[in-house]
Protein backbone atom coordinates (compact mmCIF):
# COMPACT_ATOMS: atom_id res chain seq x y z
CA UNK A 1 0.00 0.00 0.00
CA UNK A 2 1.31 3.45 -0.97
CA UNK A 3 1.20 6.19 1.68
CA UNK A 4 0.60 9.78 0.61
CA UNK A 5 1.99 12.75 2.53
CA UNK A 6 -0.68 14.86 4.36
CA UNK A 7 0.29 17.86 2.24
CA UNK A 8 -0.20 15.97 -1.04
CA UNK A 9 -3.48 14.53 0.25
CA UNK A 10 -4.76 17.99 1.24
CA UNK A 11 -3.79 19.40 -2.15
CA UNK A 12 -5.59 16.56 -3.96
CA UNK A 13 -8.66 17.10 -1.81
CA UNK A 14 -8.76 20.85 -2.47
CA UNK A 15 -8.21 20.24 -6.21
CA UNK A 16 -11.07 17.71 -6.24
CA UNK A 17 -13.44 20.14 -4.50
CA UNK A 18 -12.43 22.82 -6.99
CA UNK A 19 -12.99 20.50 -9.96
CA UNK A 20 -16.36 19.41 -8.59
CA UNK A 21 -17.44 23.01 -7.96
CA UNK A 22 -16.44 24.04 -11.48
CA UNK A 23 -18.33 21.09 -12.96
CA UNK A 24 -21.45 22.01 -10.95
CA UNK A 25 -21.19 25.68 -11.95
CA UNK A 26 -20.81 24.78 -15.62
CA UNK A 27 -23.66 22.24 -15.53
CA UNK A 28 -26.00 24.80 -13.92
CA UNK A 29 -24.87 27.53 -16.32
CA UNK A 30 -25.59 25.27 -19.30
CA UNK A 31 -29.23 24.94 -18.19
CA UNK A 32 -29.72 28.62 -19.02
CA UNK A 33 -27.91 28.76 -22.37
CA UNK A 34 -28.18 27.12 -25.77
CA UNK A 35 -27.79 24.54 -27.23
CA UNK A 36 -30.02 22.41 -24.99
CA UNK A 37 -30.19 18.67 -25.49
CA UNK A 38 -33.90 18.17 -24.85
CA UNK A 39 -33.98 14.65 -26.31
CA UNK A 40 -31.21 13.63 -23.89
CA UNK A 41 -33.13 15.19 -20.99
CA UNK A 42 -36.26 13.15 -21.84
CA UNK A 43 -34.19 9.97 -22.28
CA UNK A 44 -32.60 10.50 -18.87
CA UNK A 45 -35.98 11.29 -17.31
CA UNK A 46 -37.24 7.97 -18.59
CA UNK A 47 -34.14 6.10 -17.45
CA UNK A 48 -33.82 7.77 -14.04
CA UNK A 49 -37.46 8.45 -13.22
CA UNK A 50 -39.50 5.68 -14.78
CA UNK A 51 -36.66 3.18 -14.38
CA UNK A 52 -36.40 3.87 -10.64
CA UNK A 53 -40.15 3.64 -10.07
CA UNK A 54 -40.27 -0.05 -9.04
CA UNK A 55 -37.56 0.24 -6.36
CA UNK A 56 -38.98 3.50 -5.06
CA UNK A 57 -42.51 2.09 -4.83
CA UNK A 58 -41.36 -1.12 -3.13
CA UNK A 59 -38.97 0.63 -0.74
CA UNK A 60 -41.55 3.24 0.19
CA UNK A 61 -44.34 0.71 0.69
CA UNK A 62 -42.35 -1.67 2.90
CA UNK A 63 -40.77 1.18 4.87
CA UNK A 64 -44.29 2.36 5.67
CA UNK A 65 -45.24 -1.20 6.67
CA UNK A 66 -42.25 -1.58 9.00
CA UNK A 67 -42.76 1.87 10.44
CA UNK A 68 -46.37 1.08 11.31
CA UNK A 69 -45.39 -2.21 12.95
CA UNK A 70 -42.59 -0.68 15.01
CA UNK A 71 -44.60 2.40 15.93
CA UNK A 72 -47.56 0.35 17.08
CA UNK A 73 -45.38 -1.66 19.49
CA UNK A 74 -44.01 1.49 21.15
CA UNK A 75 -47.27 3.47 21.07
CA UNK A 76 -49.17 0.58 22.60
CA UNK A 77 -47.20 1.04 25.84
CA UNK A 78 -48.60 4.57 26.12
CA UNK A 79 -52.06 3.58 24.96
CA UNK A 80 -51.60 5.75 21.91
CA UNK A 81 -51.78 3.15 19.15
CA UNK A 82 -54.29 5.34 17.32
CA UNK A 83 -51.48 7.79 16.63
CA UNK A 84 -49.77 5.29 14.30
CA UNK A 85 -51.11 7.17 11.27
CA UNK A 86 -49.65 10.44 12.53
CA UNK A 87 -46.25 8.89 13.16
CA UNK A 88 -46.06 7.07 9.84
CA UNK A 89 -47.23 10.08 7.83
CA UNK A 90 -44.91 12.56 9.52
CA UNK A 91 -41.91 10.22 9.30
CA UNK A 92 -42.52 9.40 5.66
CA UNK A 93 -43.21 12.95 4.48
CA UNK A 94 -40.52 14.74 6.45
CA UNK A 95 -37.70 12.24 6.54
CA UNK A 96 -37.90 8.67 5.32
CA UNK A 97 -39.57 9.34 1.98
CA UNK A 98 -37.00 11.92 0.79
CA UNK A 99 -33.92 10.23 2.29
CA UNK A 100 -34.71 6.65 1.30
CA UNK A 101 -35.75 7.69 -2.20
CA UNK A 102 -32.53 9.69 -2.49
CA UNK A 103 -30.44 6.74 -1.33
CA UNK A 104 -32.25 4.27 -3.59
CA UNK A 105 -31.94 6.50 -6.65
CA UNK A 106 -28.33 7.21 -5.69
CA UNK A 107 -27.53 3.49 -5.56
CA UNK A 108 -29.17 2.92 -8.90
CA UNK A 109 -28.32 6.06 -10.86
CA UNK A 110 -25.16 7.63 -9.39
CA UNK A 111 -23.50 4.27 -10.04
CA UNK A 112 -25.04 4.10 -13.51
CA UNK A 113 -23.85 7.60 -14.41
CA UNK A 114 -20.34 7.01 -13.04
CA UNK A 115 -19.94 3.73 -14.89
CA UNK A 116 -21.42 4.99 -18.16
CA UNK A 117 -19.38 8.19 -18.24
CA UNK A 118 -16.34 6.37 -16.84
CA UNK A 119 -16.47 3.81 -19.66
CA UNK A 120 -16.79 6.64 -22.17
CA UNK A 121 -13.81 8.39 -20.58
CA UNK A 122 -11.45 5.41 -20.64
CA UNK A 123 -12.42 4.48 -24.21
CA UNK A 124 -11.71 8.09 -25.33
CA UNK A 125 -15.37 8.67 -26.28
CA UNK A 126 -15.41 11.85 -24.18
CA UNK A 127 -12.35 13.14 -26.05
CA UNK A 128 -13.99 12.11 -29.33
CA UNK A 129 -17.07 14.09 -28.35
CA UNK A 130 -14.94 17.17 -27.68
CA UNK A 131 -13.06 16.61 -30.92
CA UNK A 132 -16.40 16.52 -32.76
CA UNK A 133 -17.27 19.93 -31.35
CA UNK A 134 -19.60 18.89 -28.51
CA UNK A 135 -19.19 20.06 -24.93
CA UNK A 136 -19.44 16.84 -22.84
CA UNK A 137 -20.73 18.71 -19.78
CA UNK A 138 -23.56 20.25 -21.78
CA UNK A 139 -24.36 16.98 -23.56
CA UNK A 140 -23.91 14.48 -20.73
CA UNK A 141 -23.99 16.22 -17.34
CA UNK A 142 -26.67 18.89 -17.70
CA UNK A 143 -29.40 16.54 -19.04
CA UNK A 144 -28.69 14.11 -16.16
CA UNK A 145 -28.78 16.95 -13.65
CA UNK A 146 -32.09 18.36 -14.90
CA UNK A 147 -33.66 14.91 -15.22
CA UNK A 148 -32.57 13.73 -11.75
CA UNK A 149 -33.69 16.87 -9.91
CA UNK A 150 -37.03 16.90 -11.74
CA UNK A 151 -37.79 13.19 -11.42
CA UNK A 152 -36.57 12.75 -7.84
CA UNK A 153 -39.10 15.37 -6.74
CA UNK A 154 -41.97 13.27 -8.11
CA UNK A 155 -40.43 9.96 -7.07
CA UNK A 156 -40.34 11.28 -3.49
CA UNK A 157 -44.04 12.15 -3.63
CA UNK A 158 -44.77 8.64 -4.93
CA UNK A 159 -42.57 7.12 -2.22
CA UNK A 160 -44.38 9.16 0.48
CA UNK A 161 -47.75 8.01 -0.84
CA UNK A 162 -46.63 4.36 -1.01
CA UNK A 163 -45.17 4.56 2.50
CA UNK A 164 -48.41 5.94 3.90
CA UNK A 165 -50.34 3.27 1.99
CA UNK A 166 -48.03 0.58 3.41
CA UNK A 167 -48.51 1.93 6.93
CA UNK A 168 -52.27 1.98 6.40
CA UNK A 169 -52.22 -1.58 5.06
CA UNK A 170 -50.37 -2.91 8.14
CA UNK A 171 -52.49 -0.81 10.52
CA UNK A 172 -55.75 -2.09 9.05
CA UNK A 173 -54.82 -5.66 8.14
CA UNK A 174 -52.56 -6.57 11.05
CA UNK A 175 -53.12 -4.06 13.84
CA UNK A 176 -56.87 -3.91 13.25
CA UNK A 177 -56.92 -0.12 13.35
CA UNK A 178 -59.52 1.99 11.61
CA UNK A 179 -58.39 3.19 8.15
CA UNK A 180 -60.29 6.47 8.51
CA UNK A 181 -58.58 7.22 11.80
CA UNK A 182 -55.19 6.37 10.30
CA UNK A 183 -55.57 8.76 7.39
CA UNK A 184 -57.33 11.46 9.42
CA UNK A 185 -54.66 11.60 12.16
CA UNK A 186 -51.96 11.47 9.51
CA UNK A 187 -53.51 14.30 7.49
CA UNK A 188 -54.18 16.46 10.54
CA UNK A 189 -50.61 16.08 11.80
CA UNK A 190 -49.09 17.61 8.69
CA UNK A 191 -48.53 21.33 8.43
CA UNK A 192 -47.31 23.41 5.49
CA UNK A 193 -43.69 23.37 6.73
CA UNK A 194 -43.56 19.57 6.85
CA UNK A 195 -44.58 19.26 3.22
CA UNK A 196 -42.15 21.98 2.15
CA UNK A 197 -39.34 20.25 4.06
CA UNK A 198 -40.15 16.91 2.44
CA UNK A 199 -40.20 18.42 -1.04
CA UNK A 200 -37.09 20.59 -0.71
CA UNK A 201 -34.86 17.66 0.26
CA UNK A 202 -35.18 15.74 -3.07
CA UNK A 203 -34.07 18.85 -4.95
CA UNK A 204 -30.77 18.75 -3.07
CA UNK A 205 -30.52 14.95 -3.29
CA UNK A 206 -31.16 15.00 -7.05
CA UNK A 207 -28.44 17.60 -7.52
CA UNK A 208 -25.99 15.55 -5.44
CA UNK A 209 -26.75 12.25 -7.23
CA UNK A 210 -26.31 13.68 -10.72
CA UNK A 211 -23.27 15.86 -10.08
CA UNK A 212 -21.39 13.30 -7.96
CA UNK A 213 -22.17 10.46 -10.41
CA UNK A 214 -21.04 12.52 -13.39
CA UNK A 215 -18.02 13.96 -11.58
CA UNK A 216 -16.64 10.54 -10.68
CA UNK A 217 -17.44 9.26 -14.17
CA UNK A 218 -15.64 12.11 -15.93
CA UNK A 219 -12.51 11.83 -13.78
CA UNK A 220 -12.15 8.07 -14.32
CA UNK A 221 -8.72 6.79 -15.25
CA UNK A 222 -7.15 3.36 -15.36
CA UNK A 223 -9.33 1.19 -17.58
CA UNK A 224 -12.09 -1.13 -16.40
CA UNK A 225 -10.69 -1.24 -12.86
CA UNK A 226 -10.90 2.54 -12.74
CA UNK A 227 -14.54 2.38 -13.88
CA UNK A 228 -15.33 0.01 -11.01
CA UNK A 229 -13.61 2.28 -8.51
CA UNK A 230 -15.41 5.36 -9.79
CA UNK A 231 -18.76 3.59 -9.54
CA UNK A 232 -18.15 2.55 -5.94
CA UNK A 233 -16.83 5.99 -4.96
CA UNK A 234 -19.80 7.71 -6.59
CA UNK A 235 -22.34 5.66 -4.63
CA UNK A 236 -20.47 6.02 -1.32
CA UNK A 237 -19.89 9.76 -1.74
CA UNK A 238 -23.40 10.57 -2.93
CA UNK A 239 -25.04 8.51 -0.15
CA UNK A 240 -22.95 10.15 2.58
CA UNK A 241 -23.48 13.64 1.18
CA UNK A 242 -27.24 13.06 0.82
CA UNK A 243 -27.49 12.20 4.53
CA UNK A 244 -25.22 15.10 5.50
CA UNK A 245 -27.23 17.57 3.43
CA UNK A 246 -30.44 16.06 4.82
CA UNK A 247 -29.21 16.94 8.31
CA UNK A 248 -28.36 20.51 7.24
CA UNK A 249 -31.68 21.04 5.44
CA UNK A 250 -33.61 19.64 8.41
CA UNK A 251 -31.77 22.06 10.70
CA UNK A 252 -32.55 24.91 8.31
CA UNK A 253 -36.23 23.97 8.06
CA UNK A 254 -36.55 23.71 11.83
CA UNK A 255 -35.06 27.20 11.98
CA UNK A 256 -37.59 28.48 9.40
CA UNK A 257 -40.77 26.62 10.37
CA UNK A 258 -40.02 25.94 14.05
CA UNK A 259 -40.61 22.16 13.84
Amino acid sequence: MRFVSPEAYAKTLVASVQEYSLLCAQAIGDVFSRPRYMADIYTQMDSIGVGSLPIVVLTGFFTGCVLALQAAVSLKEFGAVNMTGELVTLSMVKELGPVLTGLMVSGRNASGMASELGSMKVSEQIDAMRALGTDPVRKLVTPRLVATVFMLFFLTIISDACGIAGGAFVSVAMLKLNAGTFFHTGYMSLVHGDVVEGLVKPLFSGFIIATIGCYYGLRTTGGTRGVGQSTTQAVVASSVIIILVDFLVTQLMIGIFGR
Partner: protein
Amino acid sequence: MAETVMSPQMSEFLASGQPMLEFENVSIGFEGHQVLSEVSFSVAHGETRILLGPAGGGKSVLMKLANGLLEPDSGEIRVFGRSLQAMKERDMYEMRAHIGMVFQESALFDSLNVEDNVAYRLEEEHVDPQEIHARVLEALSFVELDKAIDKYPSELSGGMRRRVSIARAIIGRPDLILYDSPTGGLDPITSMTIIELVLKQRDVSRTTCLLITHRLQDAFTLATHRYNMQEHHMEPIPNHGIDPSTRFLVLNEGKVVFDGATLELTHTQDPWLKEYIE
Protein backbone atom coordinates in the same frame (compact mmCIF):
# COMPACT_ATOMS: atom_id res chain seq x y z
CA MET B 1 -15.21 12.52 -50.79
CA ALA B 2 -16.22 15.77 -52.37
CA GLU B 3 -13.86 18.69 -52.44
CA THR B 4 -13.61 20.66 -49.22
CA VAL B 5 -15.95 23.64 -49.19
CA MET B 6 -14.02 26.46 -47.56
CA SER B 7 -15.46 29.18 -45.39
CA PRO B 8 -14.44 32.78 -46.27
CA GLN B 9 -12.33 32.97 -43.07
CA MET B 10 -10.50 29.79 -44.04
CA SER B 11 -9.85 31.02 -47.60
CA GLU B 12 -8.51 34.27 -46.14
CA PHE B 13 -6.28 32.33 -43.76
CA LEU B 14 -4.91 30.10 -46.53
CA ALA B 15 -4.19 33.14 -48.69
CA SER B 16 -2.01 34.49 -45.86
CA GLY B 17 0.37 31.53 -46.36
CA GLN B 18 0.61 30.77 -42.64
CA PRO B 19 1.07 27.17 -41.48
CA MET B 20 -2.07 25.18 -40.67
CA LEU B 21 -0.57 24.00 -37.41
CA GLU B 22 2.34 25.43 -35.44
CA PHE B 23 3.98 24.28 -32.22
CA GLU B 24 6.37 26.73 -30.58
CA ASN B 25 8.48 25.51 -27.63
CA VAL B 26 5.62 23.38 -26.33
CA SER B 27 6.21 21.45 -23.12
CA ILE B 28 3.87 19.31 -21.07
CA GLY B 29 4.30 16.88 -18.19
CA PHE B 30 2.12 14.69 -16.00
CA GLU B 31 2.72 13.99 -12.32
CA GLY B 32 6.33 15.15 -12.44
CA HIS B 33 7.14 13.28 -15.65
CA GLN B 34 8.05 15.46 -18.62
CA VAL B 35 6.26 14.09 -21.70
CA LEU B 36 7.10 16.76 -24.28
CA SER B 37 9.81 19.36 -23.90
CA GLU B 38 10.35 22.41 -26.08
CA VAL B 39 8.69 20.88 -29.15
CA SER B 40 8.56 23.16 -32.17
CA PHE B 41 7.41 22.39 -35.69
CA SER B 42 4.86 23.53 -38.24
CA VAL B 43 2.58 21.86 -40.78
CA ALA B 44 1.93 23.73 -44.02
CA HIS B 45 -1.31 23.69 -46.02
CA GLY B 46 -1.68 20.46 -48.01
CA GLU B 47 1.17 18.79 -46.15
CA THR B 48 1.05 15.23 -44.80
CA ARG B 49 3.17 15.23 -41.66
CA ILE B 50 4.08 11.79 -40.38
CA LEU B 51 4.93 11.52 -36.71
CA LEU B 52 7.32 8.70 -35.85
CA GLY B 53 9.00 7.62 -32.67
CA PRO B 54 9.20 4.90 -30.04
CA ALA B 55 6.14 4.11 -27.93
CA GLY B 56 5.74 6.43 -24.94
CA GLY B 57 7.50 9.29 -26.70
CA GLY B 58 4.57 11.69 -26.41
CA LYS B 59 3.10 11.37 -29.90
CA SER B 60 -0.53 10.88 -28.82
CA VAL B 61 -0.17 13.70 -26.29
CA LEU B 62 1.08 15.94 -29.09
CA MET B 63 -1.96 15.00 -31.17
CA LYS B 64 -4.34 15.89 -28.34
CA LEU B 65 -2.50 19.18 -27.81
CA ALA B 66 -2.99 19.98 -31.51
CA ASN B 67 -6.75 19.60 -31.11
CA GLY B 68 -6.91 21.52 -27.84
CA LEU B 69 -7.92 18.41 -25.88
CA LEU B 70 -4.96 19.04 -23.57
CA GLU B 71 -3.33 22.30 -22.52
CA PRO B 72 0.45 22.67 -22.64
CA ASP B 73 2.40 23.69 -19.52
CA SER B 74 4.36 26.19 -21.62
CA GLY B 75 4.80 27.25 -25.23
CA GLU B 76 2.25 28.17 -27.85
CA ILE B 77 0.13 26.15 -30.30
CA ARG B 78 -1.43 27.88 -33.28
CA VAL B 79 -4.10 26.18 -35.37
CA PHE B 80 -5.23 27.97 -38.55
CA GLY B 81 -3.16 30.92 -37.33
CA ARG B 82 -5.01 31.26 -34.01
CA SER B 83 -3.38 30.61 -30.69
CA LEU B 84 -5.18 27.87 -28.75
CA GLN B 85 -4.02 29.41 -25.48
CA ALA B 86 -5.88 32.63 -26.30
CA MET B 87 -9.10 30.78 -27.18
CA LYS B 88 -12.08 30.25 -24.92
CA GLU B 89 -13.52 26.73 -24.73
CA ARG B 90 -16.49 27.84 -26.85
CA ASP B 91 -14.19 29.13 -29.63
CA MET B 92 -12.28 25.88 -29.38
CA TYR B 93 -15.45 23.92 -30.29
CA GLU B 94 -15.91 26.13 -33.35
CA MET B 95 -12.28 25.61 -34.32
CA ARG B 96 -12.68 21.82 -33.99
CA ALA B 97 -15.43 21.91 -36.61
CA HIS B 98 -12.56 22.33 -39.12
CA ILE B 99 -10.56 19.42 -37.72
CA GLY B 100 -11.20 15.70 -38.13
CA MET B 101 -9.63 13.30 -35.68
CA VAL B 102 -9.16 9.54 -35.86
CA PHE B 103 -8.44 8.10 -32.43
CA GLN B 104 -6.02 5.30 -31.60
CA GLU B 105 -8.78 2.92 -30.49
CA SER B 106 -11.38 4.44 -32.86
CA ALA B 107 -13.37 5.92 -29.92
CA LEU B 108 -16.71 5.22 -31.62
CA PHE B 109 -19.81 5.89 -29.51
CA ASP B 110 -20.77 2.34 -28.59
CA SER B 111 -24.44 3.15 -27.97
CA LEU B 112 -24.88 4.56 -31.49
CA ASN B 113 -24.90 2.60 -34.74
CA VAL B 114 -22.49 3.29 -37.58
CA GLU B 115 -24.83 5.77 -39.28
CA ASP B 116 -25.33 7.81 -36.11
CA ASN B 117 -21.63 7.68 -35.28
CA VAL B 118 -20.66 9.02 -38.69
CA ALA B 119 -23.52 11.53 -38.71
CA TYR B 120 -22.76 12.79 -35.19
CA ARG B 121 -21.04 16.04 -36.17
CA LEU B 122 -23.67 16.94 -38.77
CA GLU B 123 -26.51 16.23 -36.33
CA GLU B 124 -24.86 18.53 -33.81
CA GLU B 125 -24.75 21.20 -36.51
CA HIS B 126 -28.49 20.63 -37.21
CA VAL B 127 -27.92 19.81 -40.88
CA ASP B 128 -31.02 18.69 -42.80
CA PRO B 129 -31.64 14.94 -42.11
CA GLN B 130 -31.80 14.08 -45.83
CA GLU B 131 -28.46 15.76 -46.44
CA ILE B 132 -27.02 13.99 -43.39
CA HIS B 133 -28.08 10.60 -44.74
CA ALA B 134 -26.62 11.37 -48.18
CA ARG B 135 -23.32 12.52 -46.69
CA VAL B 136 -23.11 9.51 -44.37
CA LEU B 137 -23.54 7.23 -47.40
CA GLU B 138 -20.90 9.20 -49.26
CA ALA B 139 -18.44 8.97 -46.34
CA LEU B 140 -19.13 5.28 -45.80
CA SER B 141 -18.73 4.47 -49.47
CA PHE B 142 -15.40 6.35 -49.38
CA VAL B 143 -14.19 3.92 -46.71
CA GLU B 144 -16.00 1.06 -48.52
CA LEU B 145 -18.23 0.27 -45.59
CA ASP B 146 -21.69 1.27 -46.84
CA LYS B 147 -23.11 -2.15 -46.01
CA ALA B 148 -22.33 -1.76 -42.31
CA ILE B 149 -24.49 1.35 -41.91
CA ASP B 150 -26.91 -0.26 -39.43
CA LYS B 151 -24.35 -2.16 -37.38
CA TYR B 152 -23.17 -1.22 -33.89
CA PRO B 153 -19.45 -0.79 -33.09
CA SER B 154 -19.43 -4.02 -31.06
CA GLU B 155 -20.41 -5.91 -34.23
CA LEU B 156 -17.44 -4.56 -36.23
CA SER B 157 -13.87 -5.82 -36.54
CA GLY B 158 -10.94 -3.60 -35.49
CA GLY B 159 -10.24 -2.58 -39.09
CA MET B 160 -13.90 -1.78 -39.76
CA ARG B 161 -14.06 0.36 -36.61
CA ARG B 162 -11.00 2.27 -37.79
CA ARG B 163 -12.68 2.84 -41.18
CA VAL B 164 -15.86 4.12 -39.51
CA SER B 165 -13.67 6.41 -37.45
CA ILE B 166 -12.11 7.77 -40.65
CA ALA B 167 -15.57 8.27 -42.16
CA ARG B 168 -16.62 10.18 -39.02
CA ALA B 169 -13.50 12.34 -39.26
CA ILE B 170 -13.94 13.27 -42.93
CA ILE B 171 -17.72 13.78 -43.05
CA GLY B 172 -17.38 17.38 -41.92
CA ARG B 173 -14.96 18.03 -44.81
CA PRO B 174 -12.24 19.17 -42.42
CA ASP B 175 -9.27 21.37 -43.30
CA LEU B 176 -6.96 19.37 -41.05
CA ILE B 177 -7.10 15.66 -40.16
CA LEU B 178 -5.32 14.18 -37.17
CA TYR B 179 -4.74 10.41 -37.37
CA ASP B 180 -3.62 8.89 -34.07
CA SER B 181 -2.08 5.51 -34.98
CA PRO B 182 -4.81 4.54 -37.48
CA THR B 183 -3.08 1.21 -38.13
CA GLY B 184 -2.15 0.43 -34.52
CA GLY B 185 -3.02 -3.14 -33.50
CA LEU B 186 -4.17 -4.15 -36.98
CA ASP B 187 -2.84 -6.96 -39.14
CA PRO B 188 -0.62 -5.95 -42.13
CA ILE B 189 -3.36 -6.42 -44.76
CA THR B 190 -5.93 -4.36 -42.85
CA SER B 191 -3.23 -1.77 -42.10
CA MET B 192 -2.56 -1.43 -45.80
CA THR B 193 -6.30 -0.90 -46.44
CA ILE B 194 -6.32 1.90 -43.86
CA ILE B 195 -3.16 3.49 -45.30
CA GLU B 196 -4.77 3.35 -48.76
CA LEU B 197 -7.74 5.27 -47.34
CA VAL B 198 -5.43 7.88 -45.80
CA LEU B 199 -3.63 8.19 -49.10
CA LYS B 200 -6.92 8.40 -51.01
CA GLN B 201 -8.10 11.20 -48.71
CA ARG B 202 -4.77 13.00 -49.16
CA ASP B 203 -4.78 12.77 -52.96
CA VAL B 204 -8.51 13.28 -53.56
CA SER B 205 -9.14 16.16 -51.16
CA ARG B 206 -5.60 17.45 -50.59
CA THR B 207 -6.42 17.82 -46.93
CA THR B 208 -3.58 18.70 -44.56
CA CYS B 209 -2.94 15.89 -42.13
CA LEU B 210 -0.84 14.86 -39.17
CA LEU B 211 -0.46 11.11 -38.80
CA ILE B 212 1.10 9.02 -36.06
CA THR B 213 2.32 5.58 -36.96
CA HIS B 214 4.51 2.94 -35.37
CA ARG B 215 4.91 1.13 -38.65
CA LEU B 216 7.72 2.55 -40.80
CA GLN B 217 6.43 0.69 -43.85
CA ASP B 218 3.12 2.63 -43.56
CA ALA B 219 5.03 5.90 -43.37
CA PHE B 220 7.15 5.12 -46.41
CA THR B 221 4.12 3.84 -48.34
CA LEU B 222 2.53 7.25 -47.84
CA ALA B 223 5.71 8.95 -49.05
CA THR B 224 6.23 6.76 -52.12
CA HIS B 225 2.71 5.99 -53.34
CA ARG B 226 -0.20 7.89 -54.84
CA TYR B 227 -3.87 7.15 -55.39
CA ASN B 228 -4.92 6.38 -58.94
CA MET B 229 -8.34 7.99 -59.23
CA GLN B 230 -9.15 6.37 -62.58
CA GLU B 231 -8.43 2.82 -61.49
CA HIS B 232 -9.33 3.36 -57.84
CA HIS B 233 -6.27 1.88 -56.25
CA MET B 234 -2.97 2.85 -54.69
CA GLU B 235 0.17 2.67 -56.84
CA PRO B 236 3.85 3.60 -56.50
CA ILE B 237 4.79 7.04 -57.75
CA PRO B 238 6.57 6.41 -61.11
CA ASN B 239 10.39 6.50 -61.34
CA HIS B 240 10.78 5.93 -57.60
CA GLY B 241 9.25 9.31 -57.03
CA ILE B 242 8.50 10.71 -53.61
CA ASP B 243 5.45 12.74 -52.64
CA PRO B 244 6.83 16.22 -51.97
CA SER B 245 4.04 17.10 -49.55
CA THR B 246 4.88 14.23 -47.20
CA ARG B 247 7.27 15.21 -44.41
CA PHE B 248 8.43 13.55 -41.22
CA LEU B 249 8.74 14.49 -37.57
CA VAL B 250 10.48 12.06 -35.23
CA LEU B 251 10.08 12.29 -31.47
CA ASN B 252 12.19 10.55 -28.89
CA GLU B 253 11.73 10.97 -25.15
CA GLY B 254 9.57 14.03 -25.69
CA LYS B 255 12.05 15.87 -27.91
CA VAL B 256 12.07 16.46 -31.66
CA VAL B 257 15.02 14.52 -33.10
CA PHE B 258 14.13 14.99 -36.76
CA ASP B 259 12.02 17.40 -38.77
CA GLY B 260 12.32 17.17 -42.52
CA ALA B 261 11.55 15.53 -45.87
CA THR B 262 11.61 11.83 -46.76
CA LEU B 263 15.04 11.78 -48.39
CA GLU B 264 16.57 13.72 -45.52
CA LEU B 265 15.27 11.05 -43.17
CA THR B 266 16.47 8.12 -45.23
CA HIS B 267 19.92 9.70 -45.64
CA THR B 268 20.32 10.79 -42.05
CA GLN B 269 23.70 10.43 -40.36
CA ASP B 270 22.25 10.58 -36.85
CA PRO B 271 23.21 7.22 -35.24
CA TRP B 272 20.00 6.88 -33.15
CA LEU B 273 17.80 7.79 -36.11
CA LYS B 274 19.67 5.39 -38.43
CA GLU B 275 19.17 2.57 -35.95
CA TYR B 276 15.51 3.48 -35.49
CA ILE B 277 14.81 3.47 -39.23
CA GLU B 278 16.70 0.26 -39.84
